[in-house]
């Protein structure tokens, strides 16, 4: 599983990255977290309102900072969906 955090590097994007890492730690997951900061890269996923969260190349969230609990839900839901 690869997770990408999309955002140009403002406060909200960094908060989302931190929370995603926390969520992964709580889930005992080894998934890698990448940051996508260039506009073209973000557009490729259709993100318009940063920050965005991409799990296994699918955009699952954009336009706000979800809570750690919500991120855990998103991760579990999308991993099961891809199986």
């Amino acid at each position: 599983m690869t997770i990408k955090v999309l955002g140009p590097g403002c406060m909200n994007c960094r908060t989302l990255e931190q929370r995603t890492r926390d969520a992964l730690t709580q889930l005992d997951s080894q998934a890698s977290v990448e940051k996508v900061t260039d506009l073209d890269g973000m557009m490729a996923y259709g993100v318009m309102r940063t920050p965005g969260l991409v799990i296994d190349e699918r955009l699952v969230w954009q336009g706000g900072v979800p809570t750690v609990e919500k991120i855990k839900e998103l991760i579990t839901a999308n991993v099961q969906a891809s199986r």
Partner: protein
Amino acid sequence: MKEWVKFTLLASAFAIFYFAPIDAPIVLQSISAGLSLLHEYARLHVLTCLVPAFFIAGTIAVYVKKDAVLQLLGPTTKKYIAYPIASVSGGILAVCSCTILPLFTGIYKRGAGIGPAVAFLFTGPAINITAILLTSSVLGWDFAIGRLVAAVVISVLAGLLMAALFRDHDRKNADGEFAAGLGGDVPYSNFTILAFFLLQLAILVVFGLSVDPALKAVIIIAMIVAVLGIVLFKFQKEHNLEWLRETWDLTKKILPYLFVGVFVAGIIEAVIPQDVVTALVGQNTILSNAIASTFGAFMYFATLTEVPIIQKLMSLGMGRGPALTLFLTGNALSLPSMIVLFKVMGKRQAPAYILTIMVLSIIAGWLFGELL
């Protein structure tokens, strides 16, 4: 920051302290003018205007349903809906300045096209709620409303013009979902959210009224209690924490730069001779508006710092027309933003956009100076 950059900064700071004529009257005057303007802002504007404004902006960031607005900027929307929506939505969609460019690129490349995208790009920074509220607190309601109306009108005109010039570039890319999977919706009634928003706005407005201080205090405390009531009994903890976090993020992002900007504005008043300002931008002529427009287009103003700088330029004799022109281009354009525009829009579109904005701002400033 790279190590050599740090070294250069430190070395130049040292050189300034070493060589600067610290005892010269002009240096002492500048520092004291800077400090006294900071004092004025701290006394008059921080608690009564900026703090409520940051909370209001935090409310917008957490509670306004943005996906509905964004859907209206999609590729299938009618033009007469897309333009007005684009020109006002900057106020609710782009509370943080770094969200403007992704939104612009998205509307441009996947959504309603270059016209509405340009309208959004121009008004996004100009009609942000904290900027309008601080302008009215410092310079008065006429300026705040003039700034708001001029920005909205110019954005639609600039958008229409760009769409007419570059029609063939406007190929719609309708594949894939537009603005799907947006987060941030909350399970409260519109009425509760509206009441929450209006109560905070009312606090700020009452602060500005000139009524009996005791009465004012009673009203404000009552409204703060009402806001707290909604926070404690209506909203969930999770959303309240988000509200505080957004407010705090915004404060961290804006307030330090504003303090520096206020200090610099104070220095400007002490350093720039009054006759230079009156000669260049004192009258409301096309030329003086053009000077203000060009200066604003290249100069970079951090969010909100345009307010103290224009305030001090006006106290040195800048006319109302050129002041409004400077508000319009100062926010929308800067040398760094021009470079980004060239990359995102292209070599032909970017200069066309920049010139359009500069010319329309001159006209708007001139009209404002003549009529009001």
